[in-house]
């Protein structure tokens, strides 16, 4: 099943995230990841959801989202036309035998070490989900002690906007 990313512009009010998340739950749609954040306009928040499903699921999700009262815009962030980014913090064992491999991986993936202790080190990596997953696969044998990921955020390239009222 194809993975796709949906951006949702909602009123910046308490409880909106619950309404959106609850709709997914009760309609039986699974979410890969979800992020919510401020936008350029304090009236609105932006929710980005990545999920998997066929076309009929995708279209049903979009229509059900549009029915929610506080949802202003819903748009699929098309892969070729959007920038996707995700950030992960990954804490690894810091032992002399593997340190060199870790540092090379960090270098090759253009990530960085954000914490370094005698026993652990923490890597910050940003990029598309596929890049982050490739990095995780690489360092997994070394032993991941802890990991957290932001989930994907996405923005369209060029003169396209989630808010249909926005223009140049």
């Amino acid at each position, binding site marked *: 099943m194809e993975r796709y990313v949906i951006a949702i512009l909602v009123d910046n009010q308490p409880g909106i995230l619950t*309404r959106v998340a*609850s709709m997914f739950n009760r309609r039986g749609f699974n979410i890969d990841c979800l992020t919510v954040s401020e936008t350029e306009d304090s009236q609105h928040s932006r929710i980005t959801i990545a999920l998997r499903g066929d076309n009929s699921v995708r279209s*049903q999700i979009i229509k059900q989202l549009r029915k929610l009262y506080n949802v202003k815009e819903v748009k699929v962030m098309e892969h070729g036309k959007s920038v996707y980014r995700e950030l992960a913090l990954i804490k690894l064992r810091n032992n002399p035998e593997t340190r060199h491999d870790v540092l090379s991986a960090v270098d090759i993936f253009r990530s960085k070490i954000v914490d370094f202790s005698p026993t652990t080190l923490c890597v910050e990596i940003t990029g598309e989900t596929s890049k982050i997953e490739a990095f995780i696969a690489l360092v997994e044998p070394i032993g991941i002690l802890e990991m957290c990921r932001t989930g994907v955020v996405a923005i369209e390239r060029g003169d396209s906007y989630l808010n249909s009222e926005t223009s140049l």
Partner: protein
Amino acid sequence: MILTGADIVVETLIEQGVKTVFGYPGGQVINLYDALYTRSDRIKHVLTAHEQGAAHAADGYARASGEVGVVIATSGPGATNLVTGIATAYLDSVPLVAITGNVPNSLIGRDSFQEVDITGVTLPITKHNFLVKSIDKLADTIREAFVIAKSGRPGPVLVDIPKDVQTATFPYIPCSVVEKRPQRVAKGDKISKAVQMIAEAQKPYIYYGGGAISAGISEEIAALAEKIDAPIGCTMMGLSAVPVDNPRYLGMEGMHGHYASSVGQDEADLIITIGARFSDRATGNVAKYARRAKIIHIDADGAELNKNINVDLGIECDIKDAMQRLIGLVNEKQHPEWMARIAELKAQEHEQFLRVTATDRITPYALIHETAKYTNPDTPIVTDVGQHQMWVAQYYPFKQVRTFISSGGLGTMGFGLGAAIGAAKATGKRTVLFTGDGSFGMNLNELATVTAENVPVTIIIMNNKVLGMVRQWQTLFFQQHYSNTDLHSRKTDFVKLAEAFGMPGYRITALSELETTVEKVFAEDGPVLVDVSIFEDEFVLPMLPPGGSIEDIITERGDK
């Protein structure tokens, strides 16, 4: 004008044209009830026996009138008692505004006495809900609740008002009745496509649901059917929108649908669907549903298009506008062979009907037929849920739109009595409630409301001393294991019960008493109850078994 929040709530309801509200007082709505008290000449409050009854009454009021129904309850248990009523309205797209009190803002989140997060509880069963945290937004929030409830596909909206918002003061500026949000009209190319599909069809079938009642398109349906020479079928929720005496009308299709309607739909090559949502009770096995047909689906709610059934042409639009344009653009057509086949199916259905009803016991049909002698075309006919509901749906001769009031989507046993009170209040007309001994047992406390308010309700209990619908399934699919569906051990005397609540009660136990007793029942002025004994193994037929298709149809006992 500076008013308290409680006053503002009631003034806003009056301003929005609300004449009757249903509810039950309690600690966090005392102020609201005080505001109702001082305005009792301008707005009527009906006190029910239980908040659930009030919610069903507001729902019945809305279904019978087309207006937004309003129910009021206190916080905590008052609010949670509304839940089944709100869910019932949600599943059947009934415009409802539920107003609940809540503990003061300062006590919210502390598990205070009678505190419940009712906006959280009702999130999945309302179109939207509001917690009004400050008085400056109170009047506009209530107005917005009305807009949401009645716009597009209607539904329930809950407004939760903490007590401190009710006691605070704020200027109130009256407003006019809010309008529905305009619905987008169908695009021209979609209508053209529909016209083309209708032109190409040899066996068109018009299929409408409850959305046709909301949109008020009874005449348009009949006109379209006439112009393109098609039969008309409907869902249970669509009943009463087209009168049974329309020669093209086949009745409801689906699990317990009319035979000609279900088979006709299966044989059609084009199904023109209007304001219906292809529920599992209507379609049976979706893989085998309407295999020979292309489907046009016209609906107010775009999310219904391709949700349960993939359709060939989906049109999200103002239904009435689309129907009128469609009627203007389609060519007149004749389908003599198809209509002859439909006539043949109707004849088969009639033969089945004669076989099922040929008995000297009191059949549901005989009872409904006898009742219909005393009702008018505009008499609201309310049901509970179960076998009796299906029999009424199958046999009662509905002549006028909004006269069939029944819980379809949620299938709420206990809906009927409250809804009948609401329907009678909305129409000012004698209302007939068909119920079963099971359903009636759930909310019979509302008899207190019926007699206190002298509501002209005729309660007809089809008493088979079993939970008949479940029993029917147990007979057919569970080797006659009648697990907890036998009510013979109950000692309830419904006639005495009626008398205890202050209304006359009658009993019919033999066919010979049917005519004379029904006559006496309908000679009564006020509320009246009649307990009619029917056979415990009377089946609702035909039946498409759950998940089955038209080949699996059971038309007579012993078929399967």
